[in-house]
């Protein structure tokens, strides 16, 4: 239940809409879910006593005890596989894979077991589990600690994938993911952990699969998720100074993704830019671009353009990483290209 707050009581509003960091919003979602449902358990590397490598699970061991909050050895395949078995056994495990790069060690459990059990066993059971994992660069962590691999999971029928961009969504989507009967890959961009945002005392729920219009505008649509939403919003603000109104859609869920909201926006703006931090080629943006290019073929005034990381492993050095990862300037350039696109421009192969 959401409290509707009278806007003329700013002090109350303040109290109920405290500023919270993204990491702490996740922490609160975990605590609230564990409080509400004794079957929710947490395990992963260093999540219990140490409180998580990014301090996201801090305090939960003290609150819920060592039976429900557990440190595991460095055994990603078994962390994920045990989550499947635990989910089949009546628990709602929330497990952590410390960096998304390490899901490479847990793919069998996620793809061959978790994703398929409900379907493959004829609907006999569900697999209510959540895998939390941080993706993304920006910390100069180098090629094996910076990847965005969510497109892999979106390609696997049976998995859901969400990537919240702000504390309120992080809270609400994690609650939704834990409540969801199916396996959800919950992706957290590491650079977001410390960002602040409002989180209501009684936060509004968000359904998995529903996008959010982060800014309205009629001239072009920018679809983004995760850390790229902030870049898209900054780009839109800069464009507004030039009188161009970009609509920014925060996708929030990648699988399923909110096709309707995107298409409605494109029907209005006739221009679409998809931005994410993952490598452009064969990334999430490819599906959105392909789908919108098909369904809105007649409406589009310019080709759908994609903005993502350059085609390389995420490099270590500051200047290299900065140049590799997409930013405001790249989104801006894409919007400009879209706006400037001439109907009879012909790009030769």
């Amino acid at each position, binding site marked *: 239940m959401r409290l509707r707050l009278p806007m003329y009581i700013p002090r109350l509003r303040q109290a109920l809409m405290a500023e919270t960091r993204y990491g702490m919003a996740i922490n609160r979602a975990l605590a609230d879910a564990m409080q509400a449902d004794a079957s929710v358990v947490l395990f992963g590397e260093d999540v219990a006593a140490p409180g998580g490598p990014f301090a996201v699970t801090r305090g939960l061991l003290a609150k819920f005890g060592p039976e429900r909050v557990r440190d*595991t050895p460095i055994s990603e395949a078994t962390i994920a*596989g045990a989550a499947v*078995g635990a989910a089949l056994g009546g628990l709602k495990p929330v497990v952590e894979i410390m960096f998304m790069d390490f899901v490479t060690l847990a793919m*069998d459990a996620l793809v061959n077991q978790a994703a398929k059990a409900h379907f493959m066993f004829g609907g006999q059971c569900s697999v209510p589990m959540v895998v939390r994992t941080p993706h993304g660069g920006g910390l100069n962590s180098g090629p094996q600690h910076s990847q965005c691999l969510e497109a892999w999971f979106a390609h696997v029928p049976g998995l859901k994938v969400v990537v919240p961009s702000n504390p309120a969504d992080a809270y609400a989507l994690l609650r939704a993911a834990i409540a969801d009967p199916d396996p959800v890959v919950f992706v957290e961009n590491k650079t977001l952990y410390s960002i602040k945002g409002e989180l209501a005392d009684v936060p509004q729920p968000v359904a998995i*699969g529903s996008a959010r219009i982060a800014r309205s505008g009629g001239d072009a649509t920018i679809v983004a998720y995760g850390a790229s939403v902030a870049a898209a919003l900054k780009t839109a603000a800069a464009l507004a100074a030039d009188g161009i109104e970009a609509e920014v859609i925060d996708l929030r869920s990648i699988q399923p993704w909110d096709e309707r909201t995107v298409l409605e926006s494109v029907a209005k703006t006739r221009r679409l830019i998809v931005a994410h931090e993952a490598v452009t080629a064969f990334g999430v943006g490819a599906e959105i671009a392909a789908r919108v290019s098909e369904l809105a073929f007649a409406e589009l005034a310019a080709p759908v353009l994609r903005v993502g990381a350059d085609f390389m492993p995420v490099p270590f050095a500051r200047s290299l990483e900065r140049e590799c990862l997409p930013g405001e300037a790249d989104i801006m350039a894409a919007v400009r290209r879209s706006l400037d696109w001439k109907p009879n421009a012909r790009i030769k192969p």
Partner: protein
Amino acid sequence: MHMELSQQDLLSLYETMVLIRRSEERLSRLFADGEVPGFLHLSIGQEAVPVGICAALQAVDTVASTHRGHGHALAKGVDLRGFFAEILGREEGLCRGRGGSIHVADLRVGMLGANGIVGGGLPLALGSALAHQVRRTGGVAVAFFGDGAMAEGVLHECLNLASLWKLPLIFACENNGWSEFSPLERQFAAQLGALGHAFGIPAVQVDGSDVEAVRAAATRIIPLARRGDGPQILECKTFRWRGHYEGDPQKYRDAGDLADARSRDPLVVSGARLEATGIPAERMRTLERAVETRIEDAVEAARLGREPDYAAAAADVYTQAAAGAHG
């Protein structure tokens, strides 16, 4: 060596073994006739392992199985009609025709599924054991796995985690000496017992062709896991009579090895034991015929079953219709 079983108990073990044997023989014929789609891995010769272990389990207990899972399924008590209907790819199948032989599951009886991934059942069983522990169900989980699966890293991870967390988990190895077409000695350099020992997990080795011996060992160690002593290893030496899958000509196997395998028939071992208890031959034949009748009934029902429902399958990718589109 182990406590004497009553004639009735022994007969009941024998009956389940006959059920598995005859079911698989029937499947073999159905496969040859083109009625079974896909692969078929038979466990003929290995029946005493699942039967002996499952006889020591309770309804709350759970088992995770392998690609060679018919015995585990039937011994854990899955519905026989649903079993045949599944393997024949029917809507009435346990998995509505979506899984087949290699994915037979019946969650109602704690059978968490055959598994197409070698070693895949190990962490599933571990997670199930965790659920038993956290939810205090009083149950234990059993991970069945073959000797070939011992080479997968996940065994190591599961031995370690089960030991650290003292999980009610039984590592049940069906050591038939073969990984597909390769013999154990070229596949695995360790003894499972020594491995368990390294992790502080007690290990028992048993003649997997002797259902009483398997049951006795299982009856001894499962309560230990149940009462909180932590994981246990039960290694059953057994024999694979057939090819890795139906249709496998077994050229890699010499006649001696095959003869060895057939020399230890769990049905013969137990049959002889039953005979020694003075059971009338007629009673045995009646039992066998009753099993065969049940099987024929299930086969007939499966044959008359419907084609699986495609729309229902498409709607079952997620538990409930999700918002938005998937593609």
